[in-house]
């Protein structure tokens, strides 16, 4: 086989299959592939967790890590309650102010899915789950952790499986609001965009330069744009970047959900993002 014809053939075939894949024509093939690999990856993940615990430390370090994980989930849950409470208070005030405006968002309904694989690409942060369009999932649906904090959105969906784009993915951008302890600030809240970054957690960008935020403040979705329900916990402010001459302030946000160790996620079934909900 000659190299030149081979190279041209590979080039043509790969470009053709990329086009087909983008049109969704190859989705059944990817669905079959995940059907075959899912049990293997799940089994290996189960094997990999104790191995990772072992590699992280010695003897009882694994127990400490699990205990830490449990406490973290508990903290995340409590933070979620605090955030929900603060947001609810603010919402009540806003609703009182805007007499007649009614909250039409119904009670959330969740679909529970298991994480079956992680995208090995270093350029993405994505997880595969064991539910797909056959279970009512669609692209853009919002995914939460067990503790109720935001994990990401469904980016690709097949019949029986789906890929979740995590909030830490470089392509993810979520309209967010910082809930400060100050009552006055709470009424308005510093608004920004929580964007994913390579090799770091989340960066809260586009904050007003005079935004009064500090480490430990809770960050939730603002609901602007209609792609996420408001009041979902994203994380806490880990550090604030001080740039006196900058037009905007930015801050690093530590996600509330333990994204690298997610095993189960909740998909909000009755919230359709603006794109899917239509006019």
């Amino acid at each position, binding site marked *: *086989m000659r*190299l030149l014809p*081979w*190279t041209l053939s*590979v*080039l043509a*075939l*790969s*470009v*053709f*299959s*990329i086009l*087909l*894949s*983008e049109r969704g024509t*190859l989705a059944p*093939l*990817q669905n079959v*592939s*995940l059907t075959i*690999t899912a049990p*293997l*990856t*799940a089994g*290996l*993940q189960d*094997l*990999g967790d104790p*191995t*990772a615990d072992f*590699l992280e430390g010695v003897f009882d370090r694994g127990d400490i890590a699990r205990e830490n994980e449990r406490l973290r989930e508990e903290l995340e849950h409590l933070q979620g309650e605090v955030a929900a409470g603060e947001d609810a208070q603010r919402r009540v005030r806003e609703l009182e102010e805007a007499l007649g405006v009614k909250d039409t968002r119904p009670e959330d309904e969740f679909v529970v899915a298991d994480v079956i*694989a*992680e*995208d*090995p*690409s*270093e*350029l*993405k942060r*994505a997880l*595969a789950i064991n539910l797909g369009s056959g279970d009512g999932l669609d692209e853009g649906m919002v995914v939460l952790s067990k503790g109720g904090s935001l994990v990401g959105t469904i*980016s*690709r969906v097949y019949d029986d499986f789906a*890929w979740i784009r995590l909030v830490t993915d*470089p*392509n993810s951008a979520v309209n967010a609001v910082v809930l400060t302890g100050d009552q006055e600030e709470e009424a308005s809240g510093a608004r920004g965009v929580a964007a994913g*970054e*390579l*090799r770091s957690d989340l960066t809260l960008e586009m904050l007003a330069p005079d935004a009064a935020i500090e480490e430990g403040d809770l960050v939730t979705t603002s609901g602007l744009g209609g792609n996420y329900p408001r009041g979902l916990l994203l994380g806490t402010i880990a550090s604030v970047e001080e740039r006196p001459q900058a037009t905007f302030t930015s801050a690093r946000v530590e996600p509330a959900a333990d994204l*690298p160790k997610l095993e189960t996620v909740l998909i909000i079934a009755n919230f359709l993002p603006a794109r899917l909900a239509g006019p």
Partner: protein
Amino acid sequence: MKYVLAFFAAFLAAVLAASVMPHVHVLGVTPDLVLILAACWAMVRGHQEAMVVVPMAAIVRDLTTSDPVGTSVLALAPIVLLAFAVRELRPVESEFLPALLVVAATSLAYSIISMTVLTVVGDDVPWGRALLLVTLPLMLVNPLFAVLVYPPIRWLSRRPRRESFGVGSAVQL
């Protein structure tokens, strides 16, 4: 048989990459097992075999990621060309060191091509940060893990040496 073996090796590498390997971080990145396997196979077994094995491994990889199918086929194709060039040139006596060089070079090529594809399909790829924080570390980490992958492939591809005596053997040698 060799292609069946290559398929199962690629399948195992792809499954490991989606399950266990995300827990492994060296210099902040995860080694790319499929790339390492394909590059080592090409260097040990030659470009003729690599012309089949590399696309096969790439398709297996594509089917276990969220990337568009065909991305890895395109991005891993330089392995064949590089393996051919390096084996033809034979810059040093060792076969092992050029293999590490090919792994490092294909890590760079893979990153650039996959970032190009993702950009073309509409993803927002932070090129500067990706090259600095992902590609450069991978060019070091992948050859490091190739040290573990190369010897088994080399060992498997060893042919049993013919032991014979007499005039015939002299002709064979």
